[in-house]
């Protein structure tokens, strides 16, 4: 018995020695490029698998390349998932090979009217609790919705006629009408916000099938995008001639011998303005404008400071510089604003 076992063992040992030593080494002329995030390997060596034994040569080439790729993958930092007995997993790096996206980058949407106002005034969003204590029912109820805290206003069997209202008016119908108007106004504002959201250059990237209007707009923008703002761009034979340059506020010149009546009226207006005792600068308007701008800057500065504090927590070395910098900025801004006022006067 024992002799047989020993013979078996010896036979097995001989077999194992006779097996060729399996190596994992692969010889290549040029090194492969690896992108392990995509499990990708790029071999730049010219393949030599032409001829009769193409399949077997391709297979051996594939085997060599796969061996190299697996060697790289086994070199990655590995751990055991789900405890000590789980499967061996390797941490893959980020994919390196750049591939085109499926959709364009998400565009930030422009702020709505309320958002602009809130930013100006420095109003921030308060987090509200989802449940409110209802005294009448003596329990926590939702703020709005199905079984809400104040009771559903639409189910009131009695509505008091307010002090200054007409006693013959139907208050229930009035409430319904007001609600409908509110909903309609909200919807209108929402659509207006969406309509305003169209930025000027929004649809101008080349996607292939564009409408005639979009193409026209794209050609216009392309024409004006030269260093000389499209002044010397040649036109196609049948393209209409360039419209006369409108220019900005400051580059608009009237023709020399134009409308004589308009010129006369303009000169008379000027003389009248010079002769009148009223000052040309409306002081109250200017002061109000200044106050509004200061408000906006204060709100922006407050918001930024608060944000910084929240980010850094206890550290205040940057905070020490913050208000000083803000003051400097405000002073400078005030100085800048006074200059246009001066120009208006002259």
């Amino acid at each position, binding site marked *: 018995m024992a002799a047989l076992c020993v013979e078996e063992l010896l036979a097995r040992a001989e077999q194992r020695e006779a097996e060729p*030593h*399996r*190596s*994992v080494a692969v010889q290549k002329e040029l090194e492969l490029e690896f992108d392990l*995030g*995509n*499990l*990708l*390997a*790029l*071999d*730049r*060596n*010219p*393949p030599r*698998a*032409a001829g009769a034994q*193409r399949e077997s040569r*391709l*297979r051996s*080439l*594939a*085997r060599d*390349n*796969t*061996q190299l*790729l*697996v*060697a790289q*993958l*086994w070199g990655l930092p*590995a751990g055991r*998932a789900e405890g000590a007995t789980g*499967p*061996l*997993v*390797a*941490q*893959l790096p980020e*994919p390196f*090979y*750049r*591939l*085109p*996206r*499926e*959709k*364009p*980058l*998400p565009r930030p*949407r422009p702020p709505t009217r309320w958002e602009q106002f809130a930013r100006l005034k420095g109003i921030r969003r308060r987090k509200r609790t989802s449940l409110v204590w209802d005294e009448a029912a003596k329990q926590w109820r939702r703020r709005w919705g199905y079984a809400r805290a104040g009771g559903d206003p639409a189910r009131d069997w009695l509505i008091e006629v307010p002090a200054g209202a007409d006693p013959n008016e139907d208050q229930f119908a009035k409430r319904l009408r007001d609600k409908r108007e509110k909903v309609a106004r909200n919807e209108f504002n929402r*659509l207006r916000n*969406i309509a305003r*959201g169209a930025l000027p250059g929004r649809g101008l*990237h*080349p*996607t*292939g*099938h564009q409408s005639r209007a979009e193409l026209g707009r794209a050609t216009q923008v392309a024409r004006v995008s030269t260093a000389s703002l499209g002044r010397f761009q040649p036109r196609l034979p049948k393209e209409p001639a360039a419209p006369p340059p409108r220019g900005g506020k400051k580059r608009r010149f009237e023709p020399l011998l134009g409308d004589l009546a308009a010129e006369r009226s303009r000169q008379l207006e000027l003389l009248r303005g010079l002769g009148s005792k009223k000052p040309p600068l409306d002081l109250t308007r200017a002061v109000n404008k200044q106050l509004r701008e200061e408000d906006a800057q204060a709100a922006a500065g407050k918001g930024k400071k608060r944000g910084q504090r929240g980010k850094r927590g206890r550290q205040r070395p940057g905070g020490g510089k913050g208000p000083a910098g803000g003051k400097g900025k405000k002073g400078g801004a005030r100085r800048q604003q006074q200059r246009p006022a001066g120009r208006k006067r002259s």
Partner: protein
Amino acid sequence: MEALDRVVKPKTKRAKRFLEKREPKLTENTKNAILIKGGNANLTVTETLKDIYALKKPFAVLYKKKNITRPFEDQTSLEFFSKKSDCSLFLFGSHNKKRPNNLIIGRMFDYHVLDMIELGIEKFVSLKDIKNSKCPEGTKPMLIFAGDTFDLNEEYRRLKSLLIDFFRGPTVPTIRLAGLEYVLHFTAMDGKIYMRSYKVLLKKSGCKIPRIELEEMGPSLDLVMRRTHLASEDLYKLSLKQPKALKPKKKKNISHDVFGTSYGRIHMQKQDLSKLQTRKMKGLKKRPAAKMTEEDEGISPKKSKSVL
């Protein structure tokens, strides 16, 4: 446009989730592929589409009916399908006398065709012709491209990018090493592209890295490139643009050596080195006697200087 910015707002949460899944995002979903049969599709082409569908499941949709379109002439119907099923990759198979066993592989950007490459199938061996065990559906394949043509020729470069995009599967942070079962090998040689799929067997070797043995498993295709419709440079560049938010934040004041040493930089204020707090060594402390002699020595050279 966000789901909330649409003119017609979604009325249910499910509809809102559906729209949010399809809108442009910072990190995108895995690309889906549509596999379409053209007007005159023969057995080879149909089998090829079915096999590639099996490889790409569940990120592919196989259209059962024939669609009579010509992608190179008119791309509107492809774009319509892509928009309906939210797929950005497509594979269109057809057959006619002029272009036998034709396969058009392409991808979309913003639901418009970005790149399209027409390939002819010269030889095709299907999954069911090779009788051995296959790997489970949805395995992430290893991709290997061999041949310098894939780098030198512009069309081949785009084809390589297309094939990687097509077959790559979802992007995962970790991978089970024993689950690397399947490799797709593309060789560019003599104007043809040989695509072979092998099942990977990991055998014991002397060291930690296993020895690889390959077993031919899946569809094998011999392809030849026919027509191409590649995107213009600027459109391609636009599609490659990645959002800034995804770029890894560079840590300031840390630099790395060629050898892997990392150096840090500390910014200090100006220090008065004479008042530095160093280790006190009692032996080096100035004793009163030593101080006196030093003072004399210190003063005398000054004196001599003034005299001179």
